[in-house]
């Protein structure tokens, strides 16, 4: 059974341009371009794409925060346009961005406020808040104002707020964005093991961290420039790349292009990373290394299996801006 059915959903935004005399130029930006996708009950589904791909806009349409221009979606059978109240009752959402809570209030006061918006009785709210603060390991600091919390602790409160009313379906928009590794690890484990496996919640998660999607999601949809590129399991996506090896070279030097090879080059703070997909990397190794050596100092050379990021670059030609740590 499908819990989320998105049908030909389209969302445009109007971007204001230069002013010409009395009129201002306007340009339509197609943030979500006729996307259709289905998410099964109990599935952990990943929407993967670079910043500005349209992931958040799609999530906000599903959460009834935006009204689509064309198409629609149903959440557990309720239409997002004609029955938004029913949709909101069964949805939990975390939106990206750090400030989605009241920093002048404590974690407990924040949760109590949102519990009242979702119609929890005082007794049920107290019990649920106790439980959530406990599993999030926030009980000791529950009465401290959020302005004194770390980013990771605030994100824990944000997740607790999203699941306060025990929703069937969760929309998690970049839940680990900007968190340090230990908090990210905790949240990923909580999302996969507790929310998805134990409680059986259907989860739609957006991320631009390829490894996070690879690790967590049952199926992954690649989104780029508002379009849905492909939907499949991580394993199948990787299998479908015809090149079955990736040559990865880390070096110091200014390289932005390799003349004879289709290389994916990332200039990082301390080094440059070059990845080339090929059927048999041994065939090209000498030529590539010779080319790189002429312009840079090589730090390491590795041959790996293609990653999800390789698949994404292969299918879209786009890069993901940040790398998952």
């Amino acid at each position, binding site marked *: 059974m499908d819990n989320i059915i998105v049908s030909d959903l389209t*969302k445009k*935004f*109007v971007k204001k341009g230069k002013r010409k005399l009395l009129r201002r130029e306007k340009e339509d930006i197609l943030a979500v371009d006729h996307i259709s996708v289905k998410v099964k009950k109990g599935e952990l589904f990943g929407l993967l794409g670079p910043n500005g791909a349209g992931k958040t*806009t799609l999530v*906000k349409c599903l*959460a*009834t*925060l*935006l*009204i689509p221009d064309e198409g629609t979606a149903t959440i557990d059978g309720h239409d997002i346009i004609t029955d938004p*109240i*029913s949709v*909101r*009752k069964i949805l939990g*959402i975390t*939106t990206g*961005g*750090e*400030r*989605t*809570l*009241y*920093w*002048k*209030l404590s974690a407990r*006061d924040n949760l*109590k*406020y*949102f519990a*009242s*918006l*979702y*119609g929890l009785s*005082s007794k049920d709210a107290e019990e649920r808040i106790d439980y959530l603060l406990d599993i999030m390991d926030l009980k000791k600091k529950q009465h401290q*104002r959020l302005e004194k919390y770390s980013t990771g602790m605030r994100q824990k409160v944000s997740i607790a*707020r999203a699941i306060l009313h025990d929703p069937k379906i969760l929309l998690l928009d970049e839940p680990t964005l900007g968190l340090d590794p230990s908090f990210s690890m905790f949240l990923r484990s909580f999302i996969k093991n507790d929310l998805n496996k134990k409680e059986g919640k259907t989860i739609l998660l957006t991320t631009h961290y390829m490894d996070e999607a690879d690790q967590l999601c049952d199926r992954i949809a690649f989104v780029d420039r508002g379009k849905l590129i492909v939907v499949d399991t991580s394993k199948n996506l990787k299998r479908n790349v015809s090149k079955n090896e990736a040559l990865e070279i880390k070096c110091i030097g200014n390289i932005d292009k390799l003349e004879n090879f289709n290389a994916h080059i990332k200039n990082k703070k301390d080094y440059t990373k070059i990845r080339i997909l090929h059927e048999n990397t041994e065939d090209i190794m000498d030529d590539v290394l010779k080319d790189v050596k002429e312009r840079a100092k090589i730090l390491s050379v590795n041959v790996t299996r293609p990653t999800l990021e390789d698949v994404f670059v292969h299918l879209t030609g786009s890069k993901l801006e940040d790398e998952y740590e």
Partner: protein
Amino acid sequence: MNSFYNLSIISAEVKKCLKILLCYPMELVFWCIFPIFWAVPFIFQGNALVGGMESEAFSKLTGTTQFMPYILIGAVLNTYVLSALYGMSNSLREESYWGTLELILGSPCSKIPILLGKALNEAVTSTIFAVMQIFICVIIFGLDVAVNQILPIMLIVILLMLGLYGLSIALAGITIQIKQSHSLIHTIEYLFYLFSPVRYPVNINPWIRMVSLVIPLTYALTVVRGIMLLDKSLINLWQNVVILLAIDIGLIVLGYYIFFYIEKRARKSGIISTY
């Protein structure tokens, strides 16, 4: 269940707003004394101009020779205007700035109890401020407040607040759309100063008098001053009360429709998501 649910939302909203307000103690002190400090220079100015605290010319326009209590009453009642405009209209802007507006609008509850909660919070805090200001006026300026005047004045203040909150709900909606509140609020605030009898009688100028007829504060000030300075009763002033009530109904209906029209428009344009 539904009305209990709505009441619990109103209560949660009031508690939330009060807790956040208490994080800014200087703000509380400011609102308790600022409107009176703001009025004092006008009292001194009047004193310097007429050479005393009473004026016959003033009496011809207002029915009372004493301009000091006239200005102080204007200052105290104007607190409700300032509080409604700044507190209520700005509150949704603040929610947007805090990133919580989306979550509130994305919750399954009706948005009316949330707005009512914000209005009630403003009413409670404005009344605390007004009581503090009256206390200062009684102690320092010897303002005379009789016990039997309190009940009818409270009734007029409630009627004034209803209209102001209708207006501020509309402004709150407009604030979601235009993403800034200060210039809009300042404009309304100064229109109220100019066209209602806060500092001076509107009879001073026919144009000001004409515009003042659509401002609820004009009728509230007329009734409260009539009770406190001219020993009139609500029955003597019933026409002002009826007009105030009619303006309240108009502003509440207008505020409701403007807010929900803009909320829907904002969900279409995506402006809710931007700061």
